[in-house]
């Protein structure tokens, strides 16, 4: 009988203990649950900022010489030089590029019609001097490397804000400039597939709505890609990045890096509509 009482007492103690632990768990969980947590929905303020980024004047009728240095993890460097011409046709951006260096790809040309309408696929043609013909490129997948660099074809286009949910993470200061730090999550898998990125965090300068830094989470390989604008200047009143670095890292280790410099950037040049045609692509510079 005593043994039974003892057993009952023990059982009560255990039950109380269990209940106490359970209550403590629930209380702790409830307490944590009411702490600030990441918002799951789109953030109107962040969206407004990113819309202003998208609407920022990029300049029109632009010409420049692009110098791209590709640096591998051992420090070996390769150089690419291109002459580029850009013109807006309404909201659609047309771009013509010619390789100047290295010699084995010199005179290769690339013409893109980057349509603002997200439902409309871009038009792209590549002129290969070895074949003496231009070739249409059909690709929704823009996650491929832009000429072997750390930039993808997607990086060379302007992301459409309707494709992302935004969240303002914080405000910060980068090299003396106040910035908003904004997270962008693709709304659909096809955007992830197209861009190759699962997430992007952008540092947007508060005075000019220019993204001066960004971190991209790569879909494959668990790597991160860091974009940094190293030289930002106003040319003809238009904020223009004249040097950009893109670094791919696995953990804290750089696996590849690309520096992109724009020399002789000019806006408002006399670029005929005819310039952005396969005719000029095939004739060359």
């Amino acid at each position, binding site marked *: 009988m005593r043994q039974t009482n003892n057993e009952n007492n023990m059982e009560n103690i255990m039950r109380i203990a269990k209940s106490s632990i359970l209550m403590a768990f629930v209380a702790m969980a409830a307490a944590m649950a009411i702490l600030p947590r990441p918002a799951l929905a789109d953030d109107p303020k962040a969206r407004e900022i990113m819309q202003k980024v998208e609407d920022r004047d990029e300049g029109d009728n632009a010409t420049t010489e692009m110098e791209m240095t590709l640096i591998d993890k051992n420090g070996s460097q390769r150089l690419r030089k291109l002459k580029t011409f850009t013109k807006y046709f309404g909201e659609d951006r047309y771009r013509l590029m010619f390789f100047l260096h290295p010699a084995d790809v010199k005179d290769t040309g690339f013409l893109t019609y980057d349509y603002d309408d997200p439902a409309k696929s871009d038009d792209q043609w590549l002129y290969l001097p070895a*074949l003496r*013909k231009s070739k249409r*490129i059909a690709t929704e997948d823009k996650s491929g490397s832009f000429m072997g660099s750390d930039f993808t074809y997607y990086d060379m286009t302007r992301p459409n804000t309707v494709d992302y949910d935004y969240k303002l993470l914080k405000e910060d200061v980068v090299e003396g400039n106040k910035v908003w730090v904004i997270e962008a999550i693709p709304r659909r898998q096809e955007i992830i597939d197209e861009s190759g990125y699962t997430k992007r965090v952008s540092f947007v300068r508060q005075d000019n709505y220019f993204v001066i830094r960004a971190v991209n989470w790569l879909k494959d390989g668990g790597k991160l890609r*860091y974009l940094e604008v190293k030289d930002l200047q106003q040319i003809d009143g238009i904020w223009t990045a004249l040097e950009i670095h893109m670094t791919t890292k696995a953990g804290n280790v750089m696996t590849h890096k690309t520096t992109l410099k724009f020399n002789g950037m000019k806006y408002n040049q006399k670029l005929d509509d005819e310039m952005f045609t396969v005719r000029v692509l095939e004739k060359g510079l």
Partner: protein
Amino acid sequence: MASGNGNSIKAVALAWALVMGHGQAMAADQSLEDALSGFDAPQEELSPAPEPETEKAPAAKPWLELSGALAVSSSYNYAHQAPDTGKTDFRGLSRLRGRLDAKLDADLPWGWKARVGGAAYHDLAYSMNGRDNYTPQTLEEYESEARLKEAYIMGSIFPSLDIKIGRQIVAWGKSDNIRVTDVLNPMDIREPGMVDIEDIREPVTMTRLDWYVGDWSVTAIAIHEIKFNFMPAYGSEFYPLSTPMPPEEIPSSTADNTEYALALSGIFPGFDIAFYLADFYDDSFSLKSAPMIMTTPAIYPPPPGAVPFTLAHNRLKMAGFSINKALGNFLAKVEGAWFDGYKFPLTGEKTFQRVDGLLGLEYTGFTETMISLEVAARTVLAHEPPIAEAPLGVDATEWQAALRYTQDFAHQTIHLTLLVSVMGLDGAGGAFERAQVKYDIMDSLSATAGVVAFQSGDTPFFLNVADNDRAFLEVKYSF
């Protein structure tokens, strides 16, 4: 009690979910902070701030530019058997070639341009193996060469009218691997599967006018230089027969023999389209029988001393079209052409029509990868049995397929290409496969290595080629 336990489990599960959920959020926040701290250290922390750079103006383009490539290539045949006495021994080294390609481009006043290019090579393999081992035709065709390539002047006569005069290449059609409407320039097929893509078309002298109207352009071409495919030389590895070819009738490059071509091309969002007309000589030869031997069945081999055939090039008329259409990551290609004017050895002066069609599909949805499949059929209309029975005969319908796979690795420093080309639906016409890897050692310097394998078939190019399998290596410096 059971109910109480169930509630407890639910409560623990809820608590666990809440705790873990928040824990994950905290971990994610930490991970995010780690990620955001991964930018390069500001330069001023690493070294004193540099003087602000003045923006560099691009160097002005020189009006005269020399460019080209210097290459050393070799190939090694690993499939040949020991030859019969007196025959060429093709085993082992088949190429050790130094080659120079050069072109001079000039920017002329009023936006006009000019180019002169040439190529020269010498192959040491023949002297290393013993020149006596080869037929004179082989040595003449393969040991050394120096040729003028493109040489033209081009410009605009009016804002919408361009002209280009001189030796040049005009590539018609949308396909990359099989020719249907690409009929204007002859090809170098002396070593099938081994010729670089940039050398496969041979420039010929033309006058070309292009008139641009909106999304359309009209191209009119007169071809003044009559030139045909470069074929394997008698006694060389790819020469299919044991006897020399009959004499070849080559029309002179006179005004009477001028070839003509007309194209209407349109470029639109999502698709390109072109229509073609041409009046030209077939770049491939056909056997033309001498009247005394023209019997059915053919007298072949001919009696000693008789020359029953000559090689002739039919004058053809062509009407064709090509379309490509982008569909997401796919590019669909369709080409079609109607030809009139084919003559065959055992059917006398009667001419036949042929209809060629091609379907192609290209997929670029995998990163850094392109897969392309093209299938073509060539059908001789009103085909007659003697056409197939003649030497190097032609079936009523002949099929060809090509599959190409390319992929880039390591930031486009390594390029893999796999190509399979098959004649006939069952491969009975012959086939070859090429696998190569190109490595960009540094800017303008590359090395390419690969293998080509051949399977013999009953089409002229693939007769007795099965033992020509080889490995190859090329180092190329471009300037």
